[in-house]
């Protein structure tokens, strides 16, 4: 009896604290454009993904995992498709007005391994959110990638890896369902070698994601 009462009190306490929390989880349709080294190495593809978000007071955390099968576009010198699996994690802290600070990581693995560069980096940036209307929100984010690591080696200058994003959410069914749209553009000015052998081998990816999430 005492255990049941304690359990009930814990449940009530948890329910009370949940009132300040919001979360969502859902699937995404992903489509993207990937370029590497030169305009000739150009891929386009599509795939699927999952995304989840959790907000508690001023803190927010978002994570998404996308798998895109990139195929060479017509006219590209590439001949083999590859599959990119990208993990994005962002932690957000509300600062003031529409502005929040974001930090996180990005990790993209390519298969087959040598068809494209696998990348890992730490991201930091700023996000501006604005409510367009009841249940409709949009956000614009920009940031930089630090400490980029590539499967094929290479380095990036301090301001060489940039990213830009645009996202929107539309609540439906009294906020239980959430239609999401995300755009992520990533430009990494990668260089390999040094001295006279130094070569620019930039990487650029544009990802669009349209998803449906269950909010709680």
């Amino acid at each position, binding site marked *: 009896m005492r255990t049941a009462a304690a359990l009930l009190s814990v449940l009530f306490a948890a329910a009370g604290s949940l009132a300040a929390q919001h979360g969502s989880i859902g699937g995404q349709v992903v489509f993207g454009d990937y370029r590497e080294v030169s305009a000739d190495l150009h891929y386009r593809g599509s795939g699927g993904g999952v995304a989840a978000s959790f907000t508690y007071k001023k803190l927010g955390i978002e994570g998404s995992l996308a798998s895109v099968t990139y195929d060479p576009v017509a006219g590209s010198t590439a001949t083999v498709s590859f599959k990119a699996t990208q993990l994005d994690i962002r932690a957000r802290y509300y600062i003031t007005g529409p502005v929040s600070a974001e930090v996180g990581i990005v990790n993209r693995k390519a298969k087959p391994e040598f068809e494209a560069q696998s990348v890992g980096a730490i991201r930091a940036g700023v996000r501006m959110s*604005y409510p*367009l209307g*009841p249940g409709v929100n949009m956000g614009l984010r920009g940031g930089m990638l630090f400490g980029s690591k590539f499967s094929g080696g290479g380095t990036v200058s301090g301001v060489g890896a940039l990213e830009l994003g*645009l996202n929107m959410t539309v609540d439906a069914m009294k906020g239980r369902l959430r239609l999401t749209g995300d755009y992520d*553009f990533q430009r990494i000015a990668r260089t390999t070698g040094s001295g006279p052998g130094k070569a620019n081998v930039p990487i650029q990816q544009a990802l669009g994601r349209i998803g449906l999430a269950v909010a709680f």
Partner: protein
Amino acid sequence: MRHSVLLLPLLLLPAALGAQAVQNATLKRAQAAYDNLDYRQALTLAHTAQRERLNGFDKARMFELLAFTYGAMDSILQSMAAFKELINLEPERELDPNRTSPKVLSAFSVALTQVLVVRQLKVDSVDFVGGQGDVGIRYVVTQPARVVTRITGGAASIKIDSSVANGQVNLRWPARLANGDPVPTGTYTVVVEATIGQNSFSASQPIRVTQGAVDTLPHLLSLPGYEYLPETEIPPKSWKPMGLALVYSGIALAGTSALSSGDLGSASFREAGVIGGGLMAAGFVVMLRKPAPQPARGNILYNRLLREQLARRNAEIAQDNVRRRQQVALRVVPIRAGGGR
């Protein structure tokens, strides 16, 4: 002309005798003679009745008949003497100035000033909180005299006033004991004693004093004349959502173009276009929809002030109610018409 003047008291007398009937037979005959304008016969019979055994009412009627008859016969001094006797018997006796001859009225007025009586003793019927009100006591003293007003009954006699007075006297009694406590519930008598030398007269009026609890004030739910204002207001429709969606999408597209590496050819705007297009569509729909209610800061501040005022007022009421629960409500009611002697 003389007859018309004399007719006035004639008309008045039956009404003055009131509902109670005269018992004495001689007095009845005297009254009948007066009614027949046979004043000499009325006088003779009235004096005969005076020597007989009369009850109080008959005695008063006999002096009244004498006063009016002497008045009708222009014997003012005798009329005054009869009126003085009448006033001693019935101090509250009044004549109707509209139905009484001026001569008789004059004789009555002069007679009043020559007799010491306390008349028209009235005690107001009042409700008040002990210590915050008083009871009005009024009376008329017909001659300059030392007048002492007391409350008797209960545990002790309370002296309200002692002064030399003549004419109308108005007093205020706070209904408190000597120690300041409210007078306990009970029946009391207001006694007014007027004295000139050996001559004295007293009038009394019984009163009922009831103690009760003081009504407490109800708490307020709103301030009279002030109403809460809506804390949200629906702003007018605006192109702002569409404009912002356009700006944000434009920034995303321009940013993509600007950040694109020149080595990689022209940037792909397909992804940004799809998401930006969706955003603009959402902005367009929002623009057409009824705007969401927005907090009205002015109204919120006004309501906050109103709530603070209400809370302050209710706190004052609560404080006042604590004080009221410690107070006593007094009700003072005169029980019946008083008498004098």
